């Protein structure tokens, strides 16, 4: 079993802790000097970076939240001047404020290295043909994996997302061995293969690295059984670096989180208190090597737990449990994050809409479908059909552009959304993952 960065991935605990402390202290010194947001926090708490004398002391500092990042749109969180930034990416928020992240030359180098680690952990070697079916664009997914695969020396096929039939023809003709995409798209590919009467057994495909959305063991079994591959999970988020934060090795028993670049903490999402080792809670990440966009105690919103037991693969870094839940109501629709609060804001723009709505998520043909049920006032409901139609179209258009994914909208009578003790269920997720 190959390990890309043996020196760091298999570091003895003592050494890793020393390295983390050194890198944490230098990161704090840099953010205090260069990022106003963090300097304000330090000054308000009346602490100096040098008061942090151990990794445990980190818990004395406040969190950085998604809202903090949105408020600092676009560049206020950057710790270097823009002329040192060689790349920008952002989260999906189409209007409102997305989160803009930057990379220096060194950040890109570290990112490629981290991606090379996750690919190697999954079993990719320089002999592989890696087909990347993540969207190339502002999102981070495709590029990180792309660099990592090139670094290893594998051959990259940057098909980007969509055009499933074409993807499959490329997969067959170019002799793809490794597929990189979201797990649901992998199933879509399997379905399309059936329609195209292509037998996956005749392909060269042997490996799949999937990420970008939660998926269960059952789904893994289905993908593996239908595509005849090994399917592995990896975890990353743009605010931290993109793909390359943590990944499964071939033992598929938790995701190795690369502790020489990130410090993980697990907190109780309601109180913000640190939880005892091994307990389940919200994952908080501090970056240790990021130059352009360092993060101190970023709340990921993802629920998991940490496992320090050494893995049979030889890596010593801590493992996080496969992530299946989130703390907020965030929905991931076709790999794009959607918050109910965004929808609420849009609905307020329309006269006659009640702020009562329900989201129904389902999967059709393997792809996520989001339907928004909106209660409208009786006046509108009994109004002429034409007006109603127009309202529906307007809401639909507005929502799709704000969220960045297509949604279906249905207008319903007031009080028709099921309420439970006056609280109505905001999200109905029918997806089986």
């Amino acid at each position, binding site marked *: 079993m190959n390990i890309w960065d043996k020196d760091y991935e298999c570091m003895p605990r003592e050494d890793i802790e020393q390295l983390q402390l050194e890198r944490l202290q*230098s990161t704090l010194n840099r953010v205090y000097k260069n990022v106003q947001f963090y300097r304000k926090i330090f000054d308000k708490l009346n602490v100096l*970076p040098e008061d942090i004398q151990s990794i445990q002391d980190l818990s004395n500092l406040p969190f950085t939240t998604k809202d903090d990042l949105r408020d600092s749109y676009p560049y206020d969180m950057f710790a270097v001047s823009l002329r040192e930034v060689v790349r920008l990416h952002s989260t999906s928020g189409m209007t409102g404020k997305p989160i803009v992240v930057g990379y*220096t030359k060194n950040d890109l180098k570290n990112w490629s290295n981290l991606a090379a680690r996750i690919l190697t952990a999954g079993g990719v070697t320089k002999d592989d043909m890696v087909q990347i079916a993540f969207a190339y664009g502002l999102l981070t997914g495709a590029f990180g994996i792309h660099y990592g695969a090139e670094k290893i020396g594998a051959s990259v096929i940057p098909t980007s997302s969509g055009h499933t039939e074409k993807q499959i023809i490329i997969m067959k003709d170019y002799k793809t061995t490794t597929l990189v995409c979201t797990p649901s798209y992998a199933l879509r590919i399997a379905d399309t293969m059936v329609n195209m009467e292509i037998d996956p057994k005749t392909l060269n495909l042997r490996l799949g690295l999937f990420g970008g959305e939660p998926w269960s063991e059952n789904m893994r079994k289905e993908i593996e059984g239908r595509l005849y591959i090994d399917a592995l999970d990896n975890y990353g988020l743009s605010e931290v670096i993109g793909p390359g934060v943590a990944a499964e090795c071939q033992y598929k028993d938790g995701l190795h989180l690369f502790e020489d670049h990130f410090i993980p903490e697990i907190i109780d999402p309601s109180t913000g208190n640190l939880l005892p080792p091994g307990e389940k809670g919200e994952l908080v990440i501090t970056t240790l090597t990021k130059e352009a966009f360092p993060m101190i105690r970023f709340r990921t919103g993802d629920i998991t737990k940490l496992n320090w037991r050494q893995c049979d693969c030889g890596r010593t870094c801590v493992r996080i449990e496969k992530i299946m839940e989130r703390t907020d109501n965030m929905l991931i629709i076709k790999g794009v994050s959607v918050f109910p609060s965004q929808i609420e804001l849009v609905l307020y723009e329309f006269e006659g809409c009640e702020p009562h709505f329900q989201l129904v998520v389902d999967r059709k043909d393997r792809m996520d479908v989001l339907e928004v049920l909106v209660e409208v006032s009786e006046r509108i409901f009994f109004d002429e059909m034409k007006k109603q139609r127009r309202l529906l179209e307007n809401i639909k258009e507005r929502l799709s552009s704000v969220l960045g994914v297509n949604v279906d909208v249905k207008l319903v009578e007031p009080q028709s959304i099921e309420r439970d003790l006056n609280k109505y269920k905001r999200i109905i997720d029918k997806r089986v993952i």
Partner: protein
Amino acid sequence: MLRIKNINTYYGKVHALKNVSIHVNVGEIVALIGANGAGKTTVLNSISGITPPREGEAIFKGVNILGLPTDQIVKMGISQIPEGRQIFAPLTVSTNLELGAYHRYSRKNKSSLKKDIEDVFSFFPILRERRNQIAGTLSGGEQQMLAIGRALMSKPSLLLLDEPSMGLAPMISKDIFRMISRLKDELKTTILIVEQNAKAALQLADRGYVIETGKIIMEESSKGLLNNKEVQRAYLGKEKKEIWE
């Protein structure tokens, strides 16, 4: 090999080192770069006990050496080559070398000392030629070799090198840097080097730390540091700083 945590060193009321944490692995060359007065030399002096830190922890081969007197630290295998070489100018080259082994100097050890001097001579053949010359009459480069040779006499496992290129002509300092990488390759010495000439030091080193006003602001591979725009601007003399925003 050496693991330092949260060292705080003061000169009177001046807080010179603020929570410095660094480590040096066996067989590594680690460079510490920074501007004048940033605290580079103070880090070395704190390790060797010349200016003992007020707080912190320095574990060398499993033992906390903080607060130990310098002679004991030398005995444990740490040897410092001071800035400006500080050789004993009126004494001969051989005597200077013998003094490097002062802590184990005894009649009994005489033959092993002789052998060690021979080893230094075979590493720096020029010193053999000059063995009976008064050290003060050596050229700058030769004096630096002598200072390194003298430090090697205490059989160190960790060498602390303070500004080895200081005051030397560019060609000569190139020679010295070549010697230092030979120290690593041939004698397997672990080295912590402090240098104004950041570029040369980073080309030599495996990893580096950047120190600024008593604080470490970066830990990176040498390649990463050479790539870093801020390091280039501040210490490598590339691209002058412009005011932005």
